[in-house]
């Protein structure tokens, strides 16, 4: 148990270190838009073949949906953990 707490602390340390290092090297922006630039650099004539059917209208809505995704996952894991412990 103690070991596991240490592992979680280590994971958070890596994230915080990455945040510190990363913020000095870049804007920590979401990366998939940047793919576009690189692909255009490599093949300037390429035009996207499809467009997304639905795009979150704003950053707020997008973060809402990401939070929903994460919380749905966390809920199921937490439910199972509680259940097996009590069985």
């Amino acid at each position: 148990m103690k070991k596991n707490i240490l592992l979680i602390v280590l994971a958070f340390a890596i994230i915080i270190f990455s945040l510190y290092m990363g913020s000095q090297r870049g804007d920590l922006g979401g990366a998939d838009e940047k793919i576009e630039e690189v692909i255009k650099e490599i093949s300037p004539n390429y035009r996207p073949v499809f467009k997304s059917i639905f795009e979150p209208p704003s950053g707020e809505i997008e973060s809402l949906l990401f939070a929903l995704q994460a919380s749905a996952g966390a809920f199921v894991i937490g439910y199972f953990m509680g259940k097996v412990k009590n069985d």
Partner: protein
Amino acid sequence: MIKVLPFFLLFMLVPGISYAMHIAEGFLPLSWCLFYFLLVVPFIAAGMKKITSLYELDKKNKMLIAVCGAYIFLLSALKLPSVTGSCSHPTGCGLSAILFGPLVTSVLSLIVLLFQALLLAHGGLSTLGANTFSMGVAGPFVAFAVYSILKKKNLKIAVFLAAALGDLFTYVVTSLQLALAFPSSSGIFSSAVKFLSIFSFTQIPLAITEGLFTVVLFDYLVKNYPEIKKLGEFKI
């Protein structure tokens, strides 16, 4: 790790743009989209069949497969900062690959990728096949292989390396997919080097983080649900 370190440090000193995550909607030519769709169909079909047989074997597996899916949901929603100056997210596929094998993981990845493509404009419907191949087939097969080889020696290290290397390999495959579709003027190889150097470095700290989280969750599951060890004996 020690061998990689000099490159790692070198990379931190070289400025440049970094990007990661799934291939966006529209950013793969149609023929490649079709190719990857056809490529993943057998894995998805075999995965569905395996999930059905796991249900029949033991009702409890249903709940456990849901937990594996939930773990992928959770981790792939977390965009974490990387030392390269951009954000990417882990895949979370390691746990499922370890417990149920890569085929089940292919189906779970498809579900998560579909959710993200439809609601978040993250990844895409046309690139769903390609993204399922990297995240749901390539990565999980590596994770499963690493786990199978190392589990008798040291279970925790096996789980850690399986999750971390599976995560990393997913992004290696994504860069190769992009390089194949977009070879630069000097060929596929230079294009691949370009995509790879950026991709893999961004993902390294995230892969380590995913490995650590997976060890903790796996350990909890083994302690509280001892039947889980039997699952590790499953074949592909």
